[in-house]
């Protein structure tokens, strides 16, 4: 016995309210992000194991439509994680200027969306330049 009380609920409780469903969708993004991280490790492994030749071969093999679709799903999940994560930042870490609490949208932009867009822009600029 754990000594904790847990209210019983249906297995599919997350269908009961739209808010619960959004919560579960947010939680499930981690499976796709995790799956992508494994693919990224494999990609780095090709470079470590066989150098650029092996990496080029591997990248050619992941350029098919199924792989592109998988990456698109991973991208949507990753962006959804980012949007919901930084959306929660103003609640998790409220900023006060004197007596006044910084409005949530401004806090989210300053603490989350701004840095995210900056990091993304720098990485993409670096690859595309």
């Amino acid at each position: 016995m754990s000594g904790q009380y847990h209210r019983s609920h249906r297995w599919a409780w997350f269908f009961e309210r739209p808010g619960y469903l959004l919560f579960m969708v947010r939680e499930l993004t981690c499976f796709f992000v995790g799956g992508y991280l494994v693919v990224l490790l494999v990609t780095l492994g090709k470079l470590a194991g066989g150098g650029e030749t092996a990496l080029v071969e591997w990248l050619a093999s992941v350029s098919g439509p199924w792989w592109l679709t998988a990456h698109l799903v991973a991208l949507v999940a990753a962006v959804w994680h980012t949007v919901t994560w930084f959306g929660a930042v103003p609640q998790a870490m409220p900023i006060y200027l004197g007596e006044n609490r910084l409005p949530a949208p401004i806090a989210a932009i300053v603490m989350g969306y701004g840095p995210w867009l900056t990091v993304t822009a720098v990485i993409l600029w670096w690859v595309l330049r």
Partner: protein
Amino acid sequence: MSGGGKGRGTGGRAATGGRAGGRSDEALWWALFSAGGVMAALFVPAFVIVTGFLLPAGDEAVAAERTAQFAAAVGWWPVKLALLGVLALSLVHCGHRIRHTMMDLGLRRYSGLLKVPCYGGALAGTIWAAMLLWGI
């Protein structure tokens, strides 16, 4: 960043899924979860665009040039260190979230047992990443 657990109340989830009474290691996992959540939020979308679309697609000459550039960047030690940190924290973040999602879907009684695949997998992935990056 701390306090990531505060945003997770929607599903009726208790922030402490660990042992009742005595000390719990949940605080450590929540802290790592929060740090990893920030890392994943900042970097993973850009990573997916780069390795999923920019490197594989395009004509061969462009792909070869980008791949060489990518290899050079990943071979630079500050990038290796940063990448290792981002990967380690993101993996723990995913492991923690998967564990708690499993608990929410009815496996709460196995919360202790679930630590083995979730955090063990994250640790294994981190060691794998360290070995790979060392070899690049």
